[in-house]
């Protein structure tokens, strides 16, 4: 007979060995067979855990990996996992707070836009698997007069997200897409806000102005179009309301509630 908590004790020791070679010695006491060989086998498991996690991170952060190089990326992913281990059985969710990790990670300071780039890539990954929703047709606008439009609270598609950044994250992202042609020089001093959506063509990414971002954030928080418009104009008096709505209808951002 084994002790009542034998299973938990064995797993606790195994878990330590998965996180660090320092845990191997204790873990081998729970294993059958040669201790030296078991240490090597525990190291094999430890390597698999890292490889599984890095593989999932690679899928979600392809651009970031290209920007920093494979070796540095793998190091970032390992450091991230150590500090913020996976909390669920679905590895697609690994990377949820990679952006906030990078924002505070000293070795990544030389590339200050990495955190925002990670946030953009995560938004793209989320957009791919967000809930489906039926977009309104482009005639939607004709159902309103100015007053009723100002009072409307349209629903936005679940895949739609907006981000702010002090860096040209959309240009950086775009340069690393398969469809990108030519090597436009990126001017790092150009701050860009971004929006991410999903339509029949897949997931789209576009640069938007700070006023447009303020408009969408306000609508996303449940405000009326009138209130969102006011916030946008306060951000930038040249806010182009018609262009913003036109873009939304073109990409199906507004949905039936």
């Amino acid at each position, binding site marked *: 007979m084994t002790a009542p908590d034998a*299973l938990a004790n064995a797993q606790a020791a*195994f878990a330590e060995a*998965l996180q660090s070679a320092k845990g191997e010695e204790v873990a081998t006491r729970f*294993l059958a067979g040669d201790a030296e060989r*078991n240490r090597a086998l525990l190291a094999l498991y430890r390597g698999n855990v890292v490889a599984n996690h890095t593989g999932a991170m690679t899928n979600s952060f392809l651009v970031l990996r290209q920007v920093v190089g494979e070796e540095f990326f793998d190091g970032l992913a390992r450091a991230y996992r150590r500090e913020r281990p996976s909390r669920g059985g679905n590895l*697609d969710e690994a990377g949820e707070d990679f952006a906030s990790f990078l924002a505070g990670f000293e070795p990544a300071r030389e590339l200050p836009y990495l955190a925002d780039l990670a946030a953009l890539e995560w938004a793209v990954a989320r957009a791919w698997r967000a809930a489906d929703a039926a977009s309104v047709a482009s005639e939607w606008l004709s159902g309103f007069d100015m007053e009723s439009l100002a009072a409307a609270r349209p629903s936005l598609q679940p895949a739609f997200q907006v981000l702010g950044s002090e860096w040209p994250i959309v240009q950086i992202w775009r340069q690393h897409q398969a469809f990108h042609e030519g090597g436009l020089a990126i001017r790092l001093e150009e701050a860009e806000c971004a929006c991410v959506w*999903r339509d029949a063509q897949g997931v789209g990414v576009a640069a938007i102005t700070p006023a447009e971002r303020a408009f969408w954030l306000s609508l996303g928080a449940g405000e009326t179009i009138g209130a969102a418009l006011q916030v946008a104009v306060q951000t930038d008096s040249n806010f182009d309301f018609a262009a913003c709505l036109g873009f939304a209808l073109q990409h199906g951002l507004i949905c039936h509630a």
Partner: protein
Amino acid sequence: MKHALAADAAGIGLRAPHLRDLLETRPALDFVEVHSENYFHAGGPALAGLLQVREHYPVSLHGVGLSLASGDAASTPMIDAHLESLAALVERVEPVLVSEHLCWGAFGGHHFNDLLPFPYSTEALALVAARVTRVQERLGRRILIENISAYVQFAGSEMSECEFLAALVARTGCGLLLDVNNLYVNACNFDFDPHAELARLPGEAVAEIHLAGHSVTELCRIDTHDAPVCDAVWSLYEDAVVRLGPRPTLIERDAKLPPLAELVAERDRAALAMARRCKEAA
């Protein structure tokens, strides 16, 4: 769509890169199987693609992240959340089979996202049986539990993996997914007779068989699922179908994916081997 598979059904594991090809060429397959977690999505094209596949093939959902054997309370909320995601997917896909591994991945609030072995003890049996029962109750259906490949064995094991699985079947009424490759890998790594171990499984509970390839290293055999099925595993498979009778059989490939046609050819080989050996044995 919940019809049971024919006993001699043969299919392939379907991974995202093959999805479009499968829908366009529609090879003759009795079923396909996907990793449940790859479709834990609220919506989007991946899930839509799977639902489209389901119009043409029975779909089996194979989980890798439920962590049925976690021995700590901290893992319970994680397991519960995972089960809810699985339940939502099962409701949408109406799979022909639902399976998970006999393993743990989560402990102390961390998830290691791997299929990890544990001591096959009566204590573990009580815990895993309670979890399997909970899963079956939540999903409202029987699930299949799969034997894993392992690189270490625990001093605290009181029985073999197959004996553990047999006891689990007796306690929960679950079905079994026999991975012949995993059984063979373990037999090599731990130097036991896979045929004797196979004989310990309650044959009537085996509702699916997996076939896959593995790698041989100096240290041990590693279940990489990245190669064609090797001759020794084919041979063990043929012995298994003679013993068990025909069973729905799946070719699994998780990495280094070949063209779809190669997997289909391997599936055809399994279907032929199953038919031939079962006919000879009859």
